[in-house]
């Protein structure tokens, strides 16, 4: 299957096997590295906690896709809105959401970022510009467009970004949203995380043309396919798109090619389910976005192995504190059930 995608992707800008090269400042790259490691380690810890049944809410892990959320969100300001999906943890952390509150939400505790009412698929950080995520495929795409409409009405220079998977390109609402956003030249960017699968189905089984970025053409909008595992490429592309949006030059569709290392949902790689091959997974693990950046930073002398070890240690500690926090937090009270239906 992966072959099919490579073939179809030929005309795109994929350069997945090449080492990272970048004109981004070492400081920013390092900052993004920290975010990516945070996401990676957070998700790995979550996987353990799911296996040990401490976490019950269905978790869709972002492992392998870290560069997309990190690269895109690094081009955004706090005031900018990001809308997320069922695979939400990476977006939440990249947009600056509080790690403790996220972990507590996965425990469905009252201290969670959605007060225990949302679980993994419904996280929000209103203060950091993440007004929610939806478990419905394609669900947040028009919502992001609406936020962009509001910003344009308010003459704010804020912009809005919608993250969604390749599966969202099956849903009509995706096309309606592209049309509306382009028609009104709204400040929104569409970020498709094409990880080649929609649950058990490969993109080739579900899309007549798997070049998702090309759908933008049909709506007079620029569309570009990039290596989603290359933080530099993600950042640079998003930056241009965000700039265009801010300058009222309209929306952009970015298709970031990436891969989830784990199964659709849950902690395991699900290779035993026979839906993808070990070779395919291995091939993508070799293209690890975190390692790629790490190698680059070391090669450029922008960091040292010592510093990297320290980063990992600090993040691990932060995550453990979050686990403690989540464990010790109270569950929502029975009386909370009927609250929050209306304001």
């Amino acid at each position, binding site marked *: 299957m992966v072959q099919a995608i490579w073939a179809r992707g030929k005309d795109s800008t994929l350069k997945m096997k090449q080492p990272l090269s970048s004109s981004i400042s070492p400081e920013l790259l390092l900052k993004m590295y920290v975010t990516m490691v945070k996401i990676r380690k957070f998700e790995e810890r979550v996987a353990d906690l799911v296996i040990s049944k401490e976490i019950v809410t269905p978790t869709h892990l972002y492992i392998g896709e870290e560069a997309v959320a990190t690269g895109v969100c690094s081009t955004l300001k706090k005031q900018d809105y990001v809308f997320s999906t069922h695979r939400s943890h990476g977006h939440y952390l990249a947009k600056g959401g509080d790690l403790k509150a996220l972990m507590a939400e996965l425990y469905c505790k009252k201290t969670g970022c*959605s007060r225990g009412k949302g679980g993994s698929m419904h996280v929000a950080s*209103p203060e950091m510009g993440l007004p929610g995520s939806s478990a419905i495929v394609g669900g947040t795409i028009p919502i992001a*467009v*609406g936020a962009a*409409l509001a910003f344009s009405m308010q003459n704010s220079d804020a912009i809005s970004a919608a993250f969604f998977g390749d599966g969202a390109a099956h849903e009509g609402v995706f096309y309606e949203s592209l049309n*509306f956003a382009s*028609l009104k030249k709204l400040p929104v960017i569409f970020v498709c995380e094409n990880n080649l699968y929609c649950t058990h189905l490969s993109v080739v089984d579900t899309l007549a043309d798997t070049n998702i970025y090309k759908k933008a053409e049909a709506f007079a909008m620029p569309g570009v396919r990039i290596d989603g595992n290359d933080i530099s490429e993600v950042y640079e592309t998003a930056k241009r798109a965000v700039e265009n949006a801010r300058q009222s030059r309209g929306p952009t569709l970015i298709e970031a090619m990436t891969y989830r290392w784990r199964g659709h949902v849950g902690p395991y790689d699900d290779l035993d389910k026979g839906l993808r091959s070990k070779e395919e997974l291995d091939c993508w693990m070799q293209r690890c976005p975190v390692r790629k950046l790490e190698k680059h930073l070391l090669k450029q002398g922008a960091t040292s192995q010592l510093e990297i070890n320290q980063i990992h240690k600090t993040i691990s500690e932060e995550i453990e504190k979050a686990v403690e926090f989540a464990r010790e937090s109270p569950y929502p009270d029975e009386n909370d059930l009927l*609250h929050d239906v209306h304001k």
Partner: protein
Amino acid sequence: MQGKAPTRMKTTFSTMCTNEDYEEHEVNFMRKINFAQAINETLCQLIDKNNHVFLIGQGVTSPWYVGSTTVGLIQRFGSKRVIDTPTSENAVTGVALGAALARMHPILCFPRMDFMYYAMDQIANHIANWHYMFGGQLNTPVTLWAIINRGGEQAAQHSQAIQAIFTHIPGLKVVAPSTPYDAKGLLVTCVEEDNPVVYIDDRWLYQYEGEVPEELYSVPIGKGVVRHKGEDVTVVATSYMVHEAIKAAEQLEKEKIKTEVVDLRSLKPLDENLLLTSVKKTGRLVIADGGWKTCGITAEISARIAENDIFKSIKAPIIRVSLPDTPAPASSSLEKVYYPNAKKIMLAVKRVLEM
């Protein structure tokens, strides 16, 4: 209503400002306009007064699409505040939600309820759940202006009155004004709300005239009102059916049957107090709603009585006057029997009085 009982009550229809809340406006009760004009004026004033309010939906700049309710708005406010859209109901609904999350208050127009099915994912999965799903942190103040447009041999896909579906879904409030006064007051309240509200508007109401103050005022959500006093039987009605109920009551009066007509005004939350007070008094209930019967509004009202202690003092079965469980037919010969009306209410009243 208990302590909040109407302080002034007329049996004719056009003057029904009876709630203390807006007593203060009585001085202005001179000008009569019709229901459609009331909506038009309110939209105009709300958009004018509030920077964060805008109108969006298919047809809002059209001279005929939504009756005369949006006439002049595009000329006055321009295409930034009055946004006509492609027929992309689902996306446009999501757009409204997104705008609400960015501190706007969209009034989202559906020229027909039938088209709302396309938008059901955004309405039910997203708008209705958003506040709850994130633990009350985010508000989604969207007014879903849902228009019922039926009759005239338009048939099954252009005639639906699916208020029950929205009333069923938690997270949505549902209002259904029956008078120009309430059309204005409830629309104002919708925009004052931080919650999504489905504002049900029946085009069969557009020609009804009534006194409407020029300035903005609000009518509370969740408060019904008695439109016609009586002791023998209660008719609880919604939206357009309120008028049919009043017609029936006036007719029945000639036959010495004293009918109390309760206009619910809000379908969710529902003014249970008012409902129970009236039914307690009369002991007999007929429910009239323009939607389908099964799992409809009439079912809910009936069940509210049946689950209440008051139930023991009920003297006759509760009759529902509604659409039969049938799609809308085209032929006027069938429309005539399809739609509930004053005559059917009268028959129902007589039946409950006989039983």
